[in-house]
């Protein structure tokens, strides 16, 4: 080697010889070692494949039963949920369960009924107004109509 301060990678060319070594007979034995490993790997894979082939029909049957069970449960669930459907709407049902009837007095019930009657009177008046407007729009004389009736 030349002066250390002027070392160049080309000066090391003669050091390119492989400084490593292997145990005796390593490369002679390696191909058979790798073949053995591949064979044992294949045996393991084959064992798994064979097991899979053996249990394949059972697996298929199991999945089929599970599938049918799932469909049946879903269908029954749908039918049952339709049958037990409440006759009142959800909103009404919520209102019903929210109030406790015992909290109402008799007077409150009467007030509600009166209010309801008032509502229907107002609706009737609106209906009558609609008839009058119709007759006026069509130009039908109110007196003539009464005479005809």
């Amino acid at each position, binding site marked *: *080697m030349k002066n*250390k*301060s002027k*070392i*160049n*990678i080309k000066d*090391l060319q003669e*050091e*390119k*010889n*492989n*400084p*490593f*070594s*292997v*145990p005796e007979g*390593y*490369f002679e034995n*390696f*191909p058979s*070692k*790798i*073949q053995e*490993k*591949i064979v044992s*790997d294949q045996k393991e894979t084959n064992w798994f494949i064979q097991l899979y082939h053996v249990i394949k029909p059972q697996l298929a049957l199991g999945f089929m039963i599970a599938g049918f069970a799932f469909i049946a449960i879903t269908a029954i669930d749908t039918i049952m949920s339709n049958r037990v459907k409440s006759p009142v709407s959800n909103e009404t049902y919520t209102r019903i369960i929210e109030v406790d009837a015992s909290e109402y007095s008799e007077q409150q019930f009467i007030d509600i009924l009166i209010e309801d009657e008032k509502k229907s009177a107002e609706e009737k008046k609106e209906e009558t107004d609609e008839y009058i407007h119709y007759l006026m729009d069509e130009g039908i004389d109110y007196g003539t109509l009464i005479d005809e009736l």
Partner: protein
Amino acid sequence: MSDYSDKELLTLFKNQEKRNYAFNLIVRKYQEKLYWHIRKIVIKHDDADDILQNTFIKIWKGLDGFREDSKLYTWLYRIATNESLTFLKQKKTKYLLSIVDYENQLKETLESDEHFNGTEIQLKLQKAILGLPEKQRIVFNMKYFEEMKYDDMAQVLNTSVGALKASYHHAVKKIENYFKED
């Protein structure tokens, strides 16, 4: 050593009856090249042996799907390189080693390795190489010791020729500086 070309070996491998024989010929043809490539990365013989076995198992499993759009030997080198890098990564993670710690460990291994028969300068050169970043180390070994073409190296390492030339240049400078400083 087999006299078959890579193409002939691949044709032979495609024949179901002869695939074991063909694979055996591939192992015989490439075992030494791949071993030394791996050994220079991981340094220890036992580690190199394990990696070489895994490399050939992967080659056996993947050879059916080899599309021949690259050379067989660059494909084999790529598998060996990837296996070696994965090994180094696992080792560092397993023992929670920093890069510097791992470098020092490899340098110690080199000194005590019964399968290292190099001169003092060769030992120093190997230590200088171990001081390089992993990928730069691989590039240096492939170019300097294995004298591989940049085009083939680019296929193995999946990078550009320009990047490889720059990497090699940096590696050479670092090694030269190592010798100057030491």
